[in-house]
């Protein structure tokens, strides 16, 4: 049956060796009768491979996807191209059906990949050390804050900005809620500067958590913030976009102490939000407080170079309640994919990818800027994401129209400006983003797709009547 091995003969022989009459007998010895389930589980009947494949193929076909729709959605997950070699390598059973390399001798493949991944992340970030992965970008940001709090035991304030990814801030609130720490969400400056944020940093500030490019696609003045933080003894944590680093300065080169990122963009499928890849790197000196597994280099008994899990005294299986984090299973397979992806791109491929994003985003902005109905909210340059205001004040119907026309046009920001987060900040996003949507343009988008997007959106039903150019 399905994947079981034992034939009736096997079962008989095995029970004989055990000296039991039945498996039930073994169970009865341990599981009190009163708590045994006396009925079959109420689940759908078993289904064979043919029927299940057929059925789920039909179910899958009911979802819009990048295979059926042109995707301009971003907000932390992006429709970047995944080279075929990434899929082929990651689908090798030796990778995806193995587990944490507890036995280094028969896990040198995974361990070397982890070590290479860590090195690639340090090359990418300009920081000294990386772990082997965390769950995703959002939880990585939170782990970075917890790490900063544990380094800065005397400081209890965490400062962040209202244009850091709203979901990341939601996570942070949950994690900080039960521990002794204060979360301060600073309103972003309209001009894109960071003066309000910088002013909020004080003696009690453990860390400043920023995102650059931030949630609304603007590049933050990271160096300035990091300098200010350092001046008052706080740590700087930056959420970065790996793809932006073909052009933008690396976190480590701007004074950032801990850099975190969502690594989905590095060769990992969108998969409705997961599994994704939490990237985390930090300055060398902070390594003993880094959460998560780390592979390191050593030599074997014959002096041969090899790799092992190391600095395990940080981890839960050794330190239990004194560990830097509770993480056990992580996202190794996605770190592998990211490593293959970065190896294929190299410095020049990464730069080309950034440049394509920049060029196509700039083009898309110009198209929106020229459309009567729309306003590009910020005039600062973008890597791949920007906010558009619908002067027609009908973002939902506009997105619905786009979807009918085979496009996923953007993320409606209005709900986030209204939704009260459970924590300190009154809403997840500043109210200026009402009637706005967030558009992401990756290297996969084409000119004609962008043109079509604008023209389809232009024609969608609207609530407010849009002023003409001349009336401005």
């Amino acid at each position, binding site marked *: 049956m399905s994947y079981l091995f034992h034939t009736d003969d096997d079962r008989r022989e095995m029970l004989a060796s055990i000296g039991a009459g039945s498996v039930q007998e073994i169970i009865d010895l341990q599981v009190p009768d009163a708590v045994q389930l006396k009925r079959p589980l109420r689940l759908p009947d078993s289904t064979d491979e043919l029927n299940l494949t057929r059925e789920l193929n039909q179910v899958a076909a009911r979802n819009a996807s990048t295979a059926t729709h042109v995707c301009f959605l971003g907000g932390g997950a992006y429709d970047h191209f995944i080279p075929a070699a990434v899929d082929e390598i990651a689908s090798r059973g030796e990778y995806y059906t193995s587990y944490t390399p507890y036995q280094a001798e028969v896990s040198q493949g995974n361990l070397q990949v982890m070590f290479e991944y860590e090195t690639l992340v340090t090359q990418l970030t300009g920081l000294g050390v990386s772990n082997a992965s965390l769950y995703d970008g959002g939880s990585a940001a939170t782990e970075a804050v917890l790490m900063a709090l544990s380094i800065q035991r005397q400081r209890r304030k965490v400062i962040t900005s209202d244009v850091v990814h709203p979901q990341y801030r939601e996570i942070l609130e949950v994690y900080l809620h039960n521990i002794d720490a204060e979360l301060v969400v600073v309103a972003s400056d309209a001009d894109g500067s960071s003066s309000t944020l910088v002013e909020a940093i004080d003696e009690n500030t453990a860390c400043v958590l920023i995102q650059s490019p931030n949630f609304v696609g603007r590049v933050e003045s990271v160096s300035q913030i990091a300098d200010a933080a350092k001046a008052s003894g706080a740590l700087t944590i930056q959420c970065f976009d790996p793809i932006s680093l073909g052009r933008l300065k690396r976190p480590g080169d701007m004074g950032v102490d801990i850099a975190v990122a969502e690594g989905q963009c590095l060769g990992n499928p969108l998969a409705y939000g997961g599994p994704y890849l939490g990237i985390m790197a930090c300055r060398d000196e902070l390594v003993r407080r880094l959460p998560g597994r780390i592979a390191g280099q050593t030599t074997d008994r014959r002096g041969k170079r090899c790799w092992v899990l190391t600095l395990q005294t940080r981890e839960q299986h050794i330190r239990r309640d004194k560990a830097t984090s509770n993480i056990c299973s992580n996202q190794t397979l996605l770190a592998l994919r990211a490593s293959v992806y970065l190896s294929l791109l190299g410095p020049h491929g990464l730069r080309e990818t950034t440049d394509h994003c920049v060029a196509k985003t700039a083009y898309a902005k110009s198209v929106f800027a020229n459309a009567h109905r729309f306003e590009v909210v910020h005039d600062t340059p973008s890597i791949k994401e920007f906010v558009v205001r619908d002067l027609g004040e009908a973002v939902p119907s506009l997105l619905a129209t786009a979807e009918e026309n085979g496009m996923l046009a953007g993320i409606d920001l209005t709900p986030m400006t209204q939704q009260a987060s*459970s924590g300190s900040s009154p809403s997840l996003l500043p109210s200026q983003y009402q009637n706005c949507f967030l558009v992401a343009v990756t290297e996969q988008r084409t000119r004609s797709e962008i043109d079509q997007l604008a023209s389809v959106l232009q024609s969608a039903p609207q609530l407010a009547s849009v002023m003409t150019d001349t009336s401005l």
Partner: protein
Amino acid sequence: MRNQQATQLLFELDRPGRRAHQLDAPDVPMPSIDALFDVDDISQAPPPLPQLAEGDVVRHFVGLSTLNMSVDTHFYPLGSCTMKYNPKRNERIASMPGFASVHPMQASSSVQGLLKCLHELQGMLAEISGLPGVSLQPAAGAHGELTALFVAAAYFQSRGENRRVVLTADSAHGTNPASAQMAGFETQTVKSNADGLVDLADLEAKLGDDTAVFMLTNPNTLGLFDRQIERINQLVHDAGALIYLDGANMNAILGITRPGDFGADLMHYNPHKTFSGPHGGGGPGAGPICVRDFLAPFLPGPIVDLDEESETFELLTPEQSIGRVRSFFGNVGVLLRAYIYIRTYGGDGLRRVSEDAVLGANYLLSKVRHILDVPHGDRCMHEFVASATRLKKQSGVSAMDLAKRILDYGFHAPTVYFPLVVDEAVMVEPTETESKQTLDAFAEALFRITDEAGDLVHDAPHSTRISRPDDVTAARKPILKWSEAEPSSSSDS
């Protein structure tokens, strides 16, 4: 015949000017980067990643893969990890673009097929656990523990109860106390008794007004179902605390007994173990949690809800929700595999899975106990823990030596030195997807090893590319990344 060159470090294969992935010129004008961005924000050179050809990359990573043992290639009786066969149909189906290429910010209306699966999965997990409230959000077992503890904390806060202590078993996985600490609780340890079960006296002593949660693993990490479960249940609940079930060992009890029926109030699943989502070399997993109805209002969002009237699936966040514990919905790719797995077996099939898992473990136990001491009896659930203590005394062969030598026989090693309550622990979980022939061969290998010369075993493994790496130096003088300065590999032969 091994290709040593291709599996040098990526950075040693680097050759400036080599290219793999390249893009043609864009079909839009290329703006000047220098003009567009603030000079302070941009860097002159891209990051110093290695420069490789596509053939380099493929040969490198394909070559490295063959240095791993894996379920697809080896018997992998790693206790507590449930290394069962990973069905290929799961991979195929979860990779369909309608599942794998869906953006997390799409409108619910555009992902009804996927939400249907996830909604059904919520119901299945509730049925299997006997606990009706389900959140699919957590990213792994440990994350599930943490999330459930956040839920417990919110629950007690909502009742104005100040319960600050979480009790964990001394045989518990390290994630239990670590999660409790992260969730803001104090932790205390409850001892195991001589039978390897919860020491009831110790539990009773430690339970109090301030106890929020007792974290129980059942079957526990010794592979034993705690017969005292009804008493534990009573003690904990009488103290006004909740029982958390670490569901890592659910593979033993599917359809046999349900956590909700034996007293658990909250639990997590490890679908990458129980429901065959592969382990990915360390992850990804998932850690969906199930809770009693009175805890459900505190679950993180989003949860999939069926609007019966419109027959559409919506995402909801419960009123009193703690919030969210990660970005987006959850590890959907892993959850889908769990869904496919459950659909494949159906209810009767899942019970059969557990029965065969129990059968396999007891059969192997019946062989191994003639070779090694098995301190906690000759019956177990899905796994058992032997001890190499006697062997170590007699011939100097430790649990570690055994683990290393068994690799030479073509088997992955059992988990060793866990749980901590057994000296020189050798924790064996064969799973239901291994043949009797394989179990026989494994027992035979163990037996042979106990007969082998000490040196042969101490120096093992002999058939692997490397043997007995120096962990101490690795930790004392950590080398955590490649750098040009590091001495390059002494080449293999």
